């Protein structure tokens, strides 16, 4: 102890210097937006490259489960394909839209989750695609089971995303049978359950009802599954229902996800922002 104190005292100038510089850098990062972005992007690039190598090992243990998920997804897609009515008279119904540039609104990119957490109250995950693959902040992230999150920041090869399991991340949602609009928000307790907020008391609900995305915020397409109603109680204010939902995605074992690019997002957002009521 005495030696430690002597050491600290001998180099006190240097330690004072370190403390003051750390204070300054903390001030810089918390007060200057540009420096903050650079810091977050560098950090996510560095963390990404470390966690990717550890994730490559754990991939082998998940292969079985991933195969099953992919088989299930294939099955569903094939069923969709067979159920599509193929008309014999192909002249009457052109199968391809005349203007294909406008008709493709959503563009999907597969990515692998290389770091993930469910234990915090604000959970983030990192994927192995970044700006060089065309990932941008505010894109939606889904997997075959439902909504997973939104991209927060992007470095060259990696991107961090805000999970639905993040108490400050709300997803615009809809109760499927009644078509009522609400908001899904995680309460920070159980990684398999979240809350559906702002559904008024006049809506008739049943256990097991599907909760889907509204498609209003241009991040997620319409009618993606978020979860299923698991508990219904009147809230203390007697104004809304207190609805618990079982999330359809198993966040504890995220492996492969799709990042959604909405080609019309800029157009839609610019329309929202040009609202004269919002301008000061």
């Amino acid at each position: 102890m005495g030696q430690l104190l002597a050491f600290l005292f001998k180099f006190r100038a240097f330690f004072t210097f370190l403390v003051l510089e750390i204070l300054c850098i903390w001030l810089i990062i918390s007060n200057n937006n540009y420096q903050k972005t650079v810091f977050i992007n560098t950090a996510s690039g560095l963390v990404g490259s470390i966690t990717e190598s550890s994730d490559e090992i754990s991939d082998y243990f998940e292969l079985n489960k991933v195969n099953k998920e992919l088989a299930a997804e294939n099955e569903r897609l094939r069923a969709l394909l067979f159920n599509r009515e193929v008309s014999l008279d192909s002249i009457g119904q052109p199968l391809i839209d005349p203007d294909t540039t406008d008709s493709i609104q959503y563009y999907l990119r597969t990515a692998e989750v290389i770091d993930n957490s469910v234990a915090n109250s604000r959970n983030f995950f990192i994927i192995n695609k970044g700006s060089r693959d065309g990932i941008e902040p505010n894109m939606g992230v889904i997997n075959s089971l439902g909504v997973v999150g939104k991209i927060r920041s992007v470095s060259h090869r990696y991107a961090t995303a805000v999970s639905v399991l993040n108490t400050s991340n709300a997803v615009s949602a809809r109760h499927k049978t009644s078509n009522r609009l609400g908001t899904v928000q995680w309460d920070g307790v159980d990684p398999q359950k979240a809350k559906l907020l702002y559904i008024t008391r006049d809506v008739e609900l049943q256990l097991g009802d599907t909760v889907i995305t509204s498609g209003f915020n241009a991040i997620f397409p319409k009618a993606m599954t978020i979860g299923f109603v698991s508990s219904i109680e009147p809230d203390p204010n007697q104004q809304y229902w207190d609805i618990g939902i079982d999330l359809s995605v198993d966040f504890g074992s995220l492996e492969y996800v799709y990042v959604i690019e909405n080609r019309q997002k800029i157009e839609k957002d610019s329309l929202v922002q040009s609202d004269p009521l919002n301008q000061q």
Partner: protein
Amino acid sequence: MNRNFAILTISFLVLIPVQVLVLEHMALFNLGFCFLYLLFVLLLPVELGHSKGMGIALGLGLVIDVFAATIGIHAAATVLLMFLRPFWLRVIIPRSGFEVNVLPSIANYGLVWFIVYAGPLVILHTLAFFFLEAAGSGLFWITLSKAGLTSVISLVFMITIQYLFYPKGKS
């Protein structure tokens, strides 16, 4: 001692307003700024310890930062300068040694000594400042030319101001 204290107080009261009100808004060729406020920390007594020096640097830097809307950047660079200053002073000690209660200015130790003393410190300060501002080495050459030009301008201003307004002769 009292005379030194008066010189430093007046320096502080004049240099800081000049820096935040006038010099912040000037940029030569859009590259060169003038960090005249560094003259104040450079003139601080030679005997001043590390901790006090860095404390003063932090406060001063933050004042400049608040006005320049660069919270923390001036402070970080100035703390770096004040951390290195005692080491540098030990290296460039004049032949006769430092006299007690004498400020390290041109009037006391001569122009050449002052340039040797202030030059490297100012260059390091501006390098730290501009690389922190650019947050990395992305715009390496622009940042480097900014730092170089700013150091030269700052030094020229510091020397001119000392010849024009500071008392001559040994204090």
